[in-house]
């Protein structure tokens, strides 16, 4: 066996590592953008959590920018981002649509009663079908839609003051949403 052949394993390894690095890099890039970015939000027809008789479709989301937040009572991170969602709901005009993902409606309602409800409307996705359409990895996830119902941004993980300041607020400004700074100027609905 020649000396050089002893380096073959090292060479093969470097090759594999390169591939692994590229794959990893892809993974990191894929994490935030969703396959839906700049594409229309999927068609859906979901029951409302608070009023199961009534349903909502994609058409109801059109006309103004909206924030779609996927949450569940089984998700501790959802609880930790809840405070920030409440703040956003109270201080801005943004329409927040909740998607109650793979959850039990009774527990979800109890949760909202206990911690407060930041959502303008909550969709009941107990079997996770809407979640599949949206390409949800897990909860919480947040999607920003423009007035045409296209996804402009997706965040996997919690919403916190830093994310609001760096990611969400500038995008909402771009979309032309009035962000009132305090409660007094909030437009009562």
């Amino acid at each position, binding site marked *: *066996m020649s*000396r050089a052949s*002893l*380096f073959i*394993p*090292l060479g093969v*390894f*470097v090759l*594999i*590592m390169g*591939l*692994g*690095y*590229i*794959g*990893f890099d*892809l*993974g*990191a890039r894929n*994490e935030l953008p969703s396959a839906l970015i700049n594409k229309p939000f999927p068609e859906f027809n979901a029951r409302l959590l608070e009023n199961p008789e009534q349903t909502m479709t994609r058409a109801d989301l059109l006309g103004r920018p909206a924030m779609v937040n996927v949450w*569940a009572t*089984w*998700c*501790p991170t959802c*609880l*930790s981002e809840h405070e920030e969602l409440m703040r956003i709901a109270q201080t801005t005009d943004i329409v927040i649509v909740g998607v109650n993902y*793979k*959850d*039990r409606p009774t527990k979800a309602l109890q949760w909202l009663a206990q911690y407060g409800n930041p959502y303008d409307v909550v969709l009941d996705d*107990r079997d996770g079908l809407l979640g599949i359409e949206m390409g949800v*990895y*897990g909860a919480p996830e947040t999607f920003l839609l423009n007035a045409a119902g296209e996804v402009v941004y997706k965040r*996997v993980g919690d919403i916190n003051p830093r994310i609001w300041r760096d990611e969400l607020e500038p995008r909402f400004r771009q979309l032309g949403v009035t962000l009132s700074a305090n409660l007094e100027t909030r437009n009562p609905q």
Partner: protein
Amino acid sequence: MIPELGNFALSLAAVLALGGSVMGLAAPRDDVLQRAAMSMVFGQWAFSLLAFAALVYAFVADDFSVAYVANQSNTLLPWYYKVSAAWGGHEGSFLLWILIMGCWMAAFSLRSGQYPLHFTTRVLGILSLLNLGFICFALFTSNPFLRLIPLTPADGADLNPLLQDFGLIVHPPLLYAGYVGLAIPFALAVAALLEGRVDATWARWCRTWTNMAWAMLTCGITLGSWWAYYELGWGGWWFWDPVENASFMPWLAATALVHSLSVTENRGTFKSWTLLLAITAFSFSLLGAFIVRSGVLTSVHSFAVDPERGMYILIFLALVVGGSLSLYAARAGQASARIGYGLLSREFFMLINNVILVVSLAVVLWGTLAPIGYEALTGGRISIGTPFFNAFFVPLGLLLLAALAFLPVLNWKRTRVEVLGGVYQAMGIAAVLGVCVWFVLDPASIVVASAVALSAWVVLTHAKQLSLRLRRGRLPAAYLGMTLAHFGFAMGTLGIAVTATQSTETDVRMSPQSSVELAGQQVTFTGVIDVLGPNYSAQQGIFILTEADGSNAYELRPEKRQYFAGGNVMTEAGIAAGFFADTYLSLGEPLEGGAWAVRLHYKPLVRWVWLGALLMALGGVLAVFDKRYARQRRKRPVADADPVTA
């Protein structure tokens, strides 16, 4: 308080790992440092145990202020699942990994009497360095002791219902014991490269540890496959899923290592190849950890995506594997030996074995990584599925069986052609059997018939040699272990070939009191009742199975479970396990009028797949108890005076 103690214990273990690696590697010949390094190894073990105990305590005490507990447990969970939930997620399972690493290191120290002290110290230094990497990974990127304060939830999110199962209590510890156990041959190989010495004695040391780790890995993979079979409700037992492949790759490398070590021990050749395999086997353990924990490949059982963790493991992998392969490239040349052997010799057949195993390894590696490469180059996604793997593994497996049939009669170095007479006789008998099977099979398949014939051939030649040896006198444990493992391989391959092609599977709509026929049995659906488990409610279907003539009645009760926390729906199959065949029922969806969609399977020889694998593992363990390893154990450590050839 207790979780903080756990965190503190883990930090102490990290400090001791740092100390142990510095002392073990810096001055392996200094008497004081030698003893210090060894005691630090025991310290690492003790403190990892303490950390792990603290985590288990947090689970048992329902301390939901610990984020990991809140994510993985629930007050309603039975106590044994609370304990096993400790390794149900990424952070805790990695702490278990560290604890098992500590156990292997402590075991190696306890057995250190048989090695020269400077060599032990080097090995422990290398192991401590690896352990340091593991502990830092846990402390900095996946600490299981992080608190959720002040947002402490009232109750936890519950353990993933898929993991609430006996199989999952024992599967990860065994699998990790196998993965991490491969660190010992790795460290032995690196120490041998550092010392520039590889000989029969080294191979004998290495064999014991390799066999044990390999046997545990075998059991771990088998349990995982068995779990997937009865818990996922699809009736499949191997999916070529990236995570399964991640455990299969180190197994293939370790299997090759077990065989090549035998050549190095008995004939003093294959040396640098053996060293390379020892490095490779452990590298694939690490690669498996990277694949499972970085989210590069998504799969049923992978953990949450976290780029930071992936980057850490990638860097760790680069350092460990890159470092050891560089060392190999620089030093392995000294280990080469020129020892000749004929074509009809054990050496040559071991070479065939190793080539087949390494080719299989390359196939699995390609099948696992190609999707990433494809995505990197084109941005598209492909999936490489079962057909790709089958196309390679069917011929490779049959070839391996054919080579194995010759092994019992072969001697080291060269074998007289006349001894092959018995092998040909056995081949004749097996071929007749194969042809008979071919006519019986429906659908007739030449591949299955040849698998049957080849397995029979392997069993016949091994059984004949075994009886010859028995008549001649005492049987060494190593020989018995080898025979058992080869029987296991034949049994497993036979099981795979038969169950993969001869199973029947039907999806039917069954209304109450209706019956269908399944492989000669009458299956009657009596109805569905509601039952309540500790943390779930379930709809339980009651099925009565009888032979065609009405005899042998028994009941199967597959369930559809709804877990309270999280609302997950799980299918619990009803399985009548048999040595020759399994009957497997699972409930699908409820249909109108009290009817249900029901999936019925009949799986001949499916148990043989796992029994064969367990036989292999048993053979591997048995071989460790051979006299030549025992004798060496009793020997006092005089070997410190060995000349060093480095």
